[in-house]
């Protein structure tokens, strides 16, 4: 009886143990990605739409760059210049108002439809009329829903004419046209999927120009076509066999949403993925040390900065603004928190943009900062807050800055929050200090100059809410200079104006600019030809192959 009892228990125990053992023995299937597919792990949760006329996020920049074509594209060898995309050649009229583009002959979309100047004109029309987030890049040349059909039109199937309202610097106009919002969409295909909507005071048109459909579908002509997007899960690109140029080497590119750097590294080490895109410094070191893996990197047009709201009387003092620039431990941050993923950079134009100067005059100097604070009458320090979104490396930098400030007697409270939450507060100008990043909207110095140095109306109800406005930095002279730079048609002179603006920001602004992002990727050795571009929409994957 005793034996029977024990056996009974034993059997059950064994059954239980067997279940657990079964689970633990669930060793994964062979970890290798298919030979014709590139699998990348990347945080792609920023994607909210795939419509190039609406998308304005980092991830969509890369997807659109690989799947659509524009009239002109950034020259990835010299990013101060542009090269032809769909356009074979272009001409600027004497008065600087008319741009005439000749298209390359015989091009087709992925659908097989021919690419014509009509498609280009319609693409511009839909962007301007839809008026989504990135539309201002086109609209800023004086285009409105009423005049777009006149200002951007096809004079014959191979010729597109674009008319601007002022004699802008041609480099400015062309740089803007390299932005993904200027992607040429397959008008025939998209029109088939346009949904009927009721016109209203805000939206005067009877259809949505295919916006709803294009959010999740594709109508472009790039080397890859976008096959599938599942939010927060994956994006799948498929080779476009109708591509007019050199065909993509791999059949398929899969972006898999993985947020964590450590996870990405593990998956890379096990061979579950070919490319890891969000590696943090520690993991980057480990990847470079691994014989099966390599890394690659490229500086990107994103800079990280701390800003001081000028509505706060203490922060509005020029000495305080200057003192804070001495209170960032640039060297320590550069060697640890952003090692490999960023480079100390103190001017507002990222390296590689026309007119960018490379000057980092500030160093960590508590004594100097204390002196300045004393001059400002704040010898005993004061208390401020900083809104920090809870991601790296900004949290680490904020905590390091907090320690530095305390050495100078300034007590800084960190208010952590989710990205959207801190941003909401920042946009309402309710912060003291904010740590954030700014990526260029389009590859032209005006993009950053406009936001850092122009503030046409510092009132709370202003409609132009630049970063200068968000920090209540009222600078009429700089605003005027920024606008003047736009009309300077000589590139060298234009660059000079931007150099001057950068120096002004460096010396007097409430922006403590810390570093420029360096995008990195960890790769399996088998991956060939993977190269990160200067912008996200030039991270081309068509040349990538695997052996």
């Amino acid at each position: 009886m005793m034996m029977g009892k024990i056996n009974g228990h034993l059997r059950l125990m064994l059954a239980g143990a067997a279940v657990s053992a079964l689970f633990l023995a669930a060793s994964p299937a062979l970890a290798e990605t298919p030979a014709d597919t590139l699998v990348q792990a990347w945080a792609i949760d920023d994607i909210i739409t795939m419509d190039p006329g609406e998308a304005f996020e980092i991830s969509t920049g890369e997807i659109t760059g690989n799947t659509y074509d524009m009239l002109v594209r950034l020259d990835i060898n010299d990013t101060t210049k542009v090269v032809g995309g769909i356009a074979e050649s272009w001409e600027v009229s004497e008065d600087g108002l008319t741009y005439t583009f000749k298209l390359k002959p015989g091009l087709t979309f992925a659908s097989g439809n021919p690419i014509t100047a009509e498609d280009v004109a319609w693409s511009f029309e839909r962007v301007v009329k839809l008026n989504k987030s990135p539309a201002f890049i086109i609209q800023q040349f004086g285009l409105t829903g009423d005049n777009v059909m006149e200002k951007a039109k096809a004079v014959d199937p191979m010729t597109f004419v674009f008319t601007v309202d002022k004699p802008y610097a041609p480099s400015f106009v062309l740089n803007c046209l390299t932005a993904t919002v200027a992607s040429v969409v397959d008008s025939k295909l998209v029109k088939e999927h346009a949904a009927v909507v009721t016109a209203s005071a805000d939206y005067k048109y009877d259809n949505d120009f295919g916006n709803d459909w294009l959010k999740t579908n594709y109508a472009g002509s790039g080397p890859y076509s976008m096959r599938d997007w599942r939010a927060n899960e994956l994006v799948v690109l498929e080779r476009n066999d109708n591509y007019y140029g050199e065909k993509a080497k791999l059949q398929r590119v899969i972006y898999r949403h993985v947020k964590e750097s450590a996870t990405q590294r593990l998956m890379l080490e096990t061979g579950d993925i070919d490319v890891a895109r969000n590696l943090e410094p520690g993991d980057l070191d480990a990847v470079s040390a691994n014989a099966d893996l390599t890394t690659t990197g490229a500086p990107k047009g994103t800079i990280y900065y701390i800003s001081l709201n000028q509505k706060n009387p203490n922060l509005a003092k020029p000495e305080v603004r200057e003192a804070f620039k001495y209170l960032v431990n640039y060297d320590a941050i550069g060697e640890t928190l952003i090692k490999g993923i960023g480079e100390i950079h103190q001017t507002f134009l990222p390296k590689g943009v026309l007119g960018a100067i490379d000057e980092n005059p500030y160093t960590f100097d508590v004594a100097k900062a204390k002196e300045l604070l004393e001059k400002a009458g704040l010898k005993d320090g004061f208390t401020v807050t900083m809104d920090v979104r809870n991601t790296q490396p900004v949290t680490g930098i904020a905590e390091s800055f907090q320690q530095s400030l305390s050495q100078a007697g300034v007590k800084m409270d960190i208010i952590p929050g989710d990205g959207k939450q801190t941003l909401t507060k920042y946009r309402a100008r309710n912060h003291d200090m904010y740590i954030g990043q700014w990526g260029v909207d389009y590859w032209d110095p005006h993009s950053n100059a406009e936001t850092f140095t122009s503030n046409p109306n510092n009132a709370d109800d202003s409609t132009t809410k630049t970063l200068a406005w968000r920090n209540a930095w009222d600078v009429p002279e700089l605003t005027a200079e920024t606008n003047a730079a736009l009309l300077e048609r000589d590139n060298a002179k234009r660059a000079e104006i931007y150099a001057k603006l950068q120096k002004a920001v460096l010396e007097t602004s409430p922006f403590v600019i810390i570093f420029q992002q360096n995008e990195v990727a960890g790769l399996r050795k088998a991956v060939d030809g993977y190269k990160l571009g200067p912008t996200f929409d030039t991270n081309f994957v068509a040349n990538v192959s695997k052996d």
Partner: protein
Amino acid sequence: MTASADTMRGWLLSEQPASRMQARLGRAYASWQRFSANRLAVLGLAIILLLVFIAIFADQLAPHSPVVGDLQGSRLLPPSTEHWFGTDDLGRDILSRIIFGSRLTLFVVVLVAIIAAPVGLLIGTVAGYAGGWTDAILMRITDIFLAFPKLILALAFVAALGPGIENAVLAIAITSWPPYARIARAETLTVRNSDYIAAVKLMGASPLRIVVRHIMPLCISSLIVRVTLDMAGIILTAAGLGFLGLGAQPPLPEWGAMIASGRRFILDQWWVAAAPGGAILIVSLGFNLLGDGLRDALDPRGGEQ
């Protein structure tokens, strides 16, 4: 000495207590005896006392500053004699952070208990005693809060209130009172129609007085047990909020937030996340052991429910 201890014991355990005081002390002593016979429960008590001790003397105990570190010189160092638990990504001593973090943990636990238990007690006893519509309405509200996923509700409240340890406390309190209300109501229902309450009523006591003076005290012991058992859950929820980035503000050494930041280094610098996780485990284990022991001691019927 021994003799007097024996007399003391005899007095406490006397079958015919001479005074109300003696009876009360006697009951408490019997409870203590049951409690102290349970070695695990004593261990739990010891852990909690140690936690309180560490929290009080954190300034003296911590070898380094919990918030200031040397970014360049001492980042992510492995455990050593200088830094027993190693250092974190900003070069701070993890042991010191854990020691100071004990204050936050106690703060959260105590404050949640102080807010949630009385609210639950009040709602439960009022609902149970009043009955009818009052009962229906109060219990529906309780049900609504119970039907919510607890962590998600806490998340939503913290998001709405803004981050910070006080708001985390408030959010957890908001989500943890309903079970207390349930318990208090159940207890109230069992005593409501008792002769004792009827007698008090006959003496002309107001409903308010009955609830506060006569019903609430009866609910307290089961509530204390329940709250103690819940403390581990409160610690885990607070840590979960911290882990999701919604708890304490940096550089406060909140344990959950420490795990979240250590998570990034788990492959090479496992100690950054391991140490605070271990601390949470030990403390919530302590509360669970204590709660278990208390329940067995205070409630000799020993039901699990």
